[in-house]
């Protein structure tokens, strides 16, 4: 079940999303990005079929991060829909100079999920979700495995190479949508420590992922 951005016009050759690990080079990375950039232009002009392409290319990532933060499938589905509606409404304002379409969409998705969680939840429920998250790491779904190996392997390896403290801070902040103050309270460490761990984790990931793509 691969997600392939199908051709937008029968005259242009199909640009399949290249997935071979270790064979990424600049031109291939550019092709899918350019496809999405073209898709965004069409969406901004009201093209609903183009929007369906965007959905197909991004729904697993959007749903994945929203589910990660919310932990509840029903809520995640609701919020994911809100994310795409917002993306549709705001598409005319999307400017490629500010970042990639996937980065733009991911920002909307993470923000919406976080807003939902912070407005609705009390901390005890959040702590409960953290333990569930830890537990879920050990539950294996083979279909998911195939999909995951396909897509996030490089970054998962990079995450696993982080020092434990940094990885946990990132897990709590990004994947579970806590503020850095909440992370500090949960871990019972000073605020500055949390900020340092998040910064160091991100810098390290940026370096590792940046190098891997060259």
């Amino acid at each position, binding site marked *: 079940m691969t997600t392939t951005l199908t051709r937008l*016009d029968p*005259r*242009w*050759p199909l640009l399949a999303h290249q997935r071979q690990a270790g064979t990424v080079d600049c031109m291939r990375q550019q092709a899918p990005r*350019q496809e999405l950039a073209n898709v965004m*232009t069409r969406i*901004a*002009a009201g*093209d*609903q079929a183009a929007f*369906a392409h965007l*959905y*197909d290319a991004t*729904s*697993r*990532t*959007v*749903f*994945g*991060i929203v*589910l*990660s933060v919310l932990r509840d499938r029903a809520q995640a*589905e609701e919020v*994911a*829909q*809100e994310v*795409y*509606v*917002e993306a*549709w*409404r*705001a598409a*005319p*304002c999307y400017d490629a*100079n*500010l*970042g990639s379409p996937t*980065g*733009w969409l*991911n*920002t909307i998705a*993470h*923000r*919406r999920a976080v*807003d939902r969680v912070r*407005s609705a939840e009390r901390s005890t429920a959040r702590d409960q979700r953290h333990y569930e998250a830890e537990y879920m790491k050990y539950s294996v779904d083979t*279909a998911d495995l195939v999909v995951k190996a396909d*897509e*996030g392997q490089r*970054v998962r390896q990079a995450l696993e190479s982080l020092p434990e403290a940094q990885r946990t801070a990132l897990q709590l*902040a*990004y*994947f579970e949508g806590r*503020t*850095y103050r909440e*992370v500090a309270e949960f871990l019972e460490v000073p605020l*500055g420590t949390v*900020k340092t761990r998040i910064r160091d984790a*991100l*810098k390290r990931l940026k370096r590792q992922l940046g190098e891997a793509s060259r």
Partner: protein
Amino acid sequence: MNDLHEQAYPYAVGALPRHQAEEFEAHLVGCPWCDTEVAELRDVTVELSQSVATPAPADLRGAVLAAIAQTPQQPATSSLSTLRGSSASGEVLPQPDDSAPQRPAPTVLPLRRSQPQRLPALLAAAAVLAALAIGGWAFQSQQKAQQTAREAVQSQQVAEQAAQQAAARTERLTELLSAPDVKTVSGRIVTTGGNGTVVLSPSQQQAVFVATDLPDLPAGRTYEAWTLDPKPVPAATFSAQEAKTAVTLPPAAFDASSVAITIEPAGGSEAPTTKPIFTVSVPQQS
């Protein structure tokens, strides 16, 4: 760690509470370093999200597509409002907030078809003029004309004609850019990362393509523009130099769904032989 630049990291992972996030966004407007860092961190967080990618429920797709069919799109305003103004309530601010510090508008604004008013068109035209440095064009064209005169010492008439042509072309372009129904659409040129722009005015029946930093092609190659309806139709062949001073597009551009540029053998082709290096949708006529 009170240094505002350091806020970029918790900001990038959404770990700042709302008031601090807004404070940081105000800082971002004036800080290119943070701006770049946040942009790069966005690429990292996309990958973080991909690490937990999960198939969405099967019925979500239909629900989303049904919802957007009922949802109007916002008119294009400052594009900063999308990323910066997505507030805690999740609502994207429809207009730039005047109280917050604003960065100058992006250099080229894609116009929406639903903007018949004159003022936005003029503002967009002004923005395009600024961005494309039409003053630079005019100077370049006239400078080129003057160079021709110097080289062809005895062809005074040729020199005068070239200058007149350059001036006439500049005048036509200025007219085009100040037409009340002028529409501009900008897109990235894949090979260079630079921008190309299509400018059209139905009332003036003029459409052009311009790009200021296309690379010169080797001998035996030319750039070719196509209008797509959706089948690609040859529109113009041109050199990198001609792209700087605007390539005229035929009237088919007005009815096309998009305009694309490819690299073809010298003399052009009847149908594209390579993938486009540039594509933009043509705004529909209102």
